[in-house]
């Protein structure tokens, strides 16, 4: 029923029924409730595979990523990385994972220390992982060449503010891959960049991914920009993963009513848009402290089945091979 069964073929990262709840402030001994930021999410990322998690802000995608990186504690569930369980471990025990997982932040300028130059920034992870000085130099140059920060000599001594947005993001990518990780997690890697630079950065990541058979986990709210740079798409809505499928399937054959609405809401440049109203559901995503019973999308859904969708949470169905959807319509 789930992708977890494909464990044997090269699964690098496997998430099983993951829940990350943040407890609200207690009133004495009274438990006031929890924000259910991630609520029962399962998926796999295979070796060398690029996967996109799409969702709106507040859908739990960043919390999911932080949980995977060990920056938030999961309430329940399993995270298996490279065959070993890593959930809820102490920072000390996670050191080996952190050398295997690179992180590309959303805002490149905010992610780079303003008082360190490019060379120092790139050397930092190597020093932490106790690499010899000669090898450090070699690796720094190699990786800068790889992200096209060339001529390397010119860029080594530059501080982040001297770089353009695109160059800053290249530096962040260089830092993420300098330890030759198995997985790179990218939180909206191009949302702060201009359209003309976005594609360049995504192509660069695609190239690095292919060269090192890296797995990449993109998190984004903009499906159209990562569509050419990943194979699988997972759609999140209100802490749940509502649909998991191939990129082309999600674009041409979306199954979950939320995914369908999301696709309808994304415009393509077309002068005819100005005369048309978009057919999107009104309302806002639910409060995650008291999520609606049953399917989290049912209050906004036009296809809801009374007495089912508002009562019982839909399990995962697989209407066609490899296409998973949490919706009662596909029972």
């Amino acid at each position: 029923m789930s992708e977890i069964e494909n464990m044997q073929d090269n699964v690098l990262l496997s998430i099983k029924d993951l829940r990350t709840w943040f407890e609200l402030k207690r009133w004495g001994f009274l438990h006031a409730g929890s924000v259910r930021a991630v609520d029962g999410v399962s998926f796999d990322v295979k070796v060398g595979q690029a996967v996109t998690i799409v969702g709106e802000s507040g859908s739990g995608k960043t919390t999911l990523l932080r949980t995977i990186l060990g920056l938030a504690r999961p309430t329940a569930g399993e995270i298996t990385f490279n065959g070993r369980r890593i959930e809820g471990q102490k920072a000390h025990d996670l050191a080996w994972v952190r050398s295997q997982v690179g992180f590309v932040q959303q805002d490149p300028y905010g992610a780079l220390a303003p008082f360190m130059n490019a060379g120092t920034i790139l050397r930092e992870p190597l020093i932490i992982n106790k690499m010899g000085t000669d090898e450090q130099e070699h690796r720094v140059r190699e990786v800068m060449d790889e992200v096209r920060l060339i001529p390397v000599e010119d860029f080594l001594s530059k501080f982040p503010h001297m770089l353009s947005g695109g160059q800053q993001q290249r530096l962040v990518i260089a830092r993420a891959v300098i330890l030759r990780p198995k997985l790179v997690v990218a939180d909206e890697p191009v949302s702060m960049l201009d359209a003309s630079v976005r594609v360049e950065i995504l192509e660069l990541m695609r190239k690095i991914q292919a060269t090192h058979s890296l797995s990449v986990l993109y998190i984004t709210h903009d499906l159209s920009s990562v569509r050419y740079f990943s194979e699988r798409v997972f759609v999140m809505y209100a802490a749940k993963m509502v649909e998991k499928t191939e990129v082309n399937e999600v674009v041409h054959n979306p199954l979950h009513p939320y995914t369908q609405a999301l696709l309808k809401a994304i415009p393509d440049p077309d002068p005819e848009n100005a005369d048309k109203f978009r057919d999107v559901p009104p309302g806002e995503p639910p409060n995650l402290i008291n999520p609606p019973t049953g399917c989290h999308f049912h209050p906004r859904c036009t296809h809801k089945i009374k007495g089912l969708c508002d009562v019982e949470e839909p399990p995962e169905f697989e209407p066609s091979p490899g296409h998973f959807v949490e919706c009662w319509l596909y029972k």
Partner: protein
Amino acid sequence: MRQEPKTVSGSSRGLRATQGAVLDVENLYLYFGATTGVVRAVDRVSFKLNHGRSLAIVGESGCGKTSLARAILRLLPRNVDTYKGRVLVDGNDVMKFSEERFRREVRWVKISMVTQAAMNSLNPVLKVGYQVAEPLLLDHRVGKGDAMERAREVFQTVGIPEAFLQRYAFELSGGMRQRAIIAMALVANPLIVILDEPTSALDTLTQANIMNALKKIKKDLRLTYIFITHDIATSSELADEVICMYAGQLVEHSKAERFYREPLHPYARMLMASVPTLRLDKKPEFISGQPPSLINPPQGCRFAERCPRRFERCQEEPPLFTHGDGLVKCWLYERD
């Protein structure tokens, strides 16, 4: 020209509707003084906009889109170096107005603006309804009762339930706060509304809902929009015509039908090709290189360095050529 309470309401719009250009910008310059030199943020921009049309201004960050809007509305920072040109609003040269007259007669009365991420700048300790009515109250143009009545009216226009007049900003969702900001821009019944990235901080579905609301408002009120965005796909939701800016200059001004299908300027073409699409199976391409510094821009065409179609002529600065019904700042169109 004080506004009477009655003329504030939306129904009087027909009387104020004028023929021809509602906004005529001629050779507008806005330079900033920085420690390293003079930043030419808006460098000789001219355009005309007819009543009831919506104009999208697109371009990459730092190309001067927001500075242009601020120059039109005279919302300037302290480090202005040069600010000159002609801005005709409804036939009056507002650049000649004193600051006080501009504030009373133009800003918010004729042209209002929804600034970037404004939804986060609502006052947390004032009720939203009062904040929306505030532009009317400030100059004592309108009494409190009438102002609140008008606020109720614009709340209806933008699609916020009336009960929200009495709420505080934190009680509203992001989409509702953005609608309140739009209501604030509409409250004095302006001729022109400048929307600076009105939806870029919002979620996809909320963004689509807000765009629907803006389209409806435009149809109902016959407003003139200036829509500033770096998101080309979203800009097509509202545009009748498009201005593309590059390095402080206007490089193309075309009708939407042309711009989104086959733009004229090589930069506009490459920019369009870099836009990822959801439905077309066309892989986006990127423009290599970076825009020039606005402190020392190149002598000739500012895009020449990155342009695949450059030739000797590009060392000189091209004027705006007319091509069909569009204007383009490129030597390739010299013959026409």
